[in-house]
Structure formats: structure tokens, C-alpha cells
């Protein structure tokens, strides 16, 4: 059974996704939580930045890294901090984000709907349980993290549906939905 706390944090992630939708961005949002407190939020900004890697997770991570460095934390201290952070995101992290999260060494990830095309936490690749890396040296492979999906998935899917019905304004011409002109 999903705890009320988990649902409350996912609700905040959904709110971030709604902000993305309002800005005509693919509606994905997230929050990062440390000791029961939200310490960073993020939402997709790929259209605005024309950088398709500016996913919600990357936005939230950058907020944190900026804040922590401003507070004078060293790299080792930041690494220690991530070990105690959980991410709540409306859609399963893609291969890029899942890999980034394992590079940072996040403790745990909760996500809404799964990502059948790009998912890096079980759907396409399983970067959260990276036992595939050759036994080498600790610094050459990412850290595993616990991953739980399906939290408020229908809400997350509904946002995607709303977005694709209004047409993706960032899609290249041949793929653009004609729904908006109708």
C-alpha cells in the first residue's frame, strides 16, 4: 500500500508537471526529498531551452547542486547528501535520467507511469540495478537505487493525453498533430 506521504510528494510532482503543461512543455514534473522535506522541484523545459535533455529530473538536480555549492559543500559532502535523497517523478526516468541518478547515487526513486519507449528503470534498460557493469573499480559503475513505479500513474497519463491532444508544438513539421488546426 502506498503511504500517504508518498502520495503527497507525488501530488507535488504532478503539480510541477501541470506547470510544464501550462508552458506547452511535455508534462513531466518531479520533486527531490531529503528527511521528509522537499528540497528541490523540477519540470520539463525542453521546448524553452531547445535542449531535449532538459528533463524535469535534470532541472531539479541542477537546482540542488547549485544550492549545495553555494552553501560551500564539497564534492564528497554532496555525494553523501544524495545517498539520503529520494526522487518523486510523474513518469519513469528515461535512460539518460536513470543513468544520471545512478551517477549521483540517489537513494530511492518513486515514479508514476512507466515509460515504454525510453524507460531506464526496467522498461527498456535497468540502470537502477546496474549489475551488468564489469567487475572493475567502484568508480567505474553507477550506484544502484530502489525504484517503485505506478504511483498515481493515471494522473500522469492524463496529463500526457492532454498534451498530445493539443499537439506537440516542438515536434518537427511532418510529425505535427493537426488537432490544433481543427
Amino acid at each position, binding site marked *: 500500500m502506498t503511504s500517504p506521504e508518498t502520495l503527497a510528494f507525488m501530488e507535488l510532482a504532478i503539480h510541477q508537471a501541470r506547470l510544464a503543461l501550462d508552458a506547452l512543455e511535455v508534462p513531466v514534473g518531479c520533486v527531490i526529498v531529503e528527511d521528509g522535506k522537499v528540497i528541490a522541484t523540477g519540470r520539463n523545459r525542453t521546448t524553452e531551452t531547445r535542449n531535449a535533455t532538459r528533463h524535469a529530473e535534470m532541472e531539479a538536480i541542477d537546482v540542488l547542486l547549485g544550492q549545495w555549492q553555494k552553501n560551500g559543500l564539497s*564534492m564528497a559532502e554532496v555525494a553523501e547528501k544524495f545517498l539520503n535523497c529520494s526522487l518523486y517523478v510523474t513518469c519513469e526516468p528515461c*535512460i539518460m535520467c536513470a*543513468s544520471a541518478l545512478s551517477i549521483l547515487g540517489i537513494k530511492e526513486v518513486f515514479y508514476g507511469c512507466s515509460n515504454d519507449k525510453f524507460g531506464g528503470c526496467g522498461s527498456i534498460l535497468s540502470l537502477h540495478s546496474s549489475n551488468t557493469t564489469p567487475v572493475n573499480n567502484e568508480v567505474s559503475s553507477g550506484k544502484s537505487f530502489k525504484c517503485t513505479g505506478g504511483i498515481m500513474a493515471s494522473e500522469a497519463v492524463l496529463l500526457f493525453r492532454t498534451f498530445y491532444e493539443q499537439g506537440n508544438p516542438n515536434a518537427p513539421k511532418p510529425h505535427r498533430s493537426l488537432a490544433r488546426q481543427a
Partner: protein
Amino acid sequence: MTNNCLIVHIPDQQPYDLHHQPTESVFASAINPKHANQIVRRLNQIVPLDDLRHVKRIQKNVLEGGEIQLLVILCVASEGNNQLDSMPPHLQELISSYQLSPFITKVCKYVATSKEEWQEQCKFWPTSYHPRTYNIDGITGFSEEDSQSVLKFMQSAVELAKSNDLVVNAAVIVDPSTKEIISSACDQIYAWNSCKDDSCYGKPESFSSHLNISSTCDPHEPLHSNSSSNWLKQPYTGVACLYIRRWAEHPSHPHSSYFWHPLRHAATVAIESSAARDRNLFPSEGTNEASYQELDSENASWTSSPAKRQKTVCGNDVDDDKLNACTQPSGQPSARPYLCTGYDIYLVWEPCAMCAMALVHQRIRRIFYAFPNPNAGALGSVHRLQGQKSLNHHYAVFRVLLPEEALHKSHV
């Protein structure tokens, strides 16, 4: 001399040993050529070969004396059960009505990925082979001119990688249609903007002015000096994609004045620079101007501000022709690139999964790398993203085998 075999295509799938391709057992039978049409039509109804679509249903042989023999695949022989009575009833009826005598044979289980594989497959049973439907320049080979160009861009990446005290990974994004460098970057894990050449908006010839690898050898350059071989034998712990968790063990220096970022691998920094270039060259185009204006306001996120500052500085260097192009009436909106569509990226080391997926998202057309990454490489070494069918974009991947002299031709 430069030649084509220096650039090796890394295929979408791990290739099978040509002579040991996986096979599947099937029931087959000789049939009377007169009944071929009826039998095949009926077979396709009752036992379609769903998982063996590449296998031809019928095989035609010319026997001694010119007699034509037709063999047809009846159905897949289920594992461990080669009994005829395990066949579906409709098939059994068909066998008895045409008086067929089924036997077991082998067919190749997977679609051939090359002409050579296909030729081997047909020794078992004929299959069909369709060369890839999308064609990306280079998969079928490079012209002498293109090879030269690839090698030059790769060497400019190698020089960037060596431009600091610590060897790092470097990335150069190129528009191959104009041979223009769109952006370039080094790993920026430990210090931002450590790379002097970062976001150099190169002119078409910019790379050739300081690069000269071809076949000319500097007679003053000791080709087999210790220093050059050492470069190759270093552990390269500074290369972000090779040691993705090394940052966490980095000795602390809390009062350092520069920023650091564990995810600023060369490829992602180069993507960021190319996006900044796009916003700079085509500031108001697009369907939602409102959000671009928002970007220009002061509440832009922390991460985008350094890039923005950089963008503003570099804006002065930007080719005026380019700027005019987008405001001229003749300038089609299509002149603005969609992300990195059509662009190539040169990386010294094979990228990790984060970088390789970032390049999928940004729609890079071709990836060239010089050295494989056995620790975390995602383009053949540990993962093989170019073969993940579910992704919405696929690039072609090549390894560039640099001539020895190209590696230590750096005298900056």
C-alpha cells in the same frame, strides 16, 4: 594513407558468428508444384510463421535431370516434441489430403543484418534480406574525402581532450553539410569552462587551419617517443564517461571559486552549447515566443545562466550571414535546425548511457568515437543503444581508428 577501413561501423546488434547463427527446427515437406499455391495459402491461414517472417515458406531446388523440387515449411517444430501428432488438427488434415511426408529441418532464427549473414542463412533454408530501410551516410563506406574530414574532426576532439593537465573526454558537434563546427566541449566535472575552445562557433575552414594529419609526418616529431606512448597508457581517470562515480571520491576543496558538476560530461555540455547557439541564431522563431521571452528574463534557472552568459559573449562572434539568414524573407523556417538533426558528434571515448541517451534525445545523426569504453560504454561495450528499437530516434555509430601519428600531433 587514410582509407575507409579506419572508420568502422558499430552495428545495431552484436553480430553473430557467421557460421554459427541461431537456428530453429521446423517441419517441412516436398510438395507437388501444381498444388503449391493452394498449400501455401492454406498454411498461411492455419499456421502463419509469425516469428520467422524473414524465412521463405517455399524452397525451390533443381534436381539432377532438371526436375523441379519444391519444399515447403509446414510449421515450427516445438522444442523437445518432434511428434507429428503435436501439430494442429487442420495441419494434419492438410498433410493427409496432399499425402505429404514431413521431415525436420533447420532455418535461421533471426533476420540477417548483413549480406554475408544472409548468404550463410540460405545454406540452411532461404531467407529474405532487406538492407536497412533508413540509410545514413557512411554505413556503406566513406569516400576518401569524407574519411579525411572525419579524421580531421576526430583529431580536433583528441586535441581538446589533451588541452588540459588532466586528459578528459571531448566532444565536437559538426554540421557535415557545411563542415562547420556547431559546438565543442570537454568534460566539465571539476571546473566549468575549463575548456578554452568551448562553444567556438567555427567557420567552415576553422578546423583545417590548425589541423594537419593526413599522411604528412612532421620529421621533428618523435613518433615512438616515450611521452606519446604514455599518453596512450594512462588510466584516464579524468574521463567522465569512463569513471562515472569518481567525482564522489574527489578530494574536497570547499573554498574553491569554480563550480563543479558530476553530470557535465563532454557530450552533454556540447549539446547545451549547440542549444544555446540555436537560441542565439534564431531567437524569436518557434511556436511559443512567450516561453523564450521568459528564458531571457532573470528568473532563468541556475544551470542555464552560465550558458546564457557564454552565449551573450559569443554572440558577438557569430557569423552575420547566419543571423541575417533567418530574417530574410527568403529564409524558410526550415533553416532553423530542429535540435541536432543532421549533425554529427565526435567523441574521443565511447559515451556512457547518460550521454548516449542525451544524443538520442537531441537527434544526433552520427556518432564517431575513437576509443571504446569497457566500463560504461553504451554504444556496444556495455549497452547498445543504437539497437534499442523502442527509441524514437536512431543514430549510426562509428569507431574511428586513429593513425598513431594523429594521437600525438598536439603542439599547442
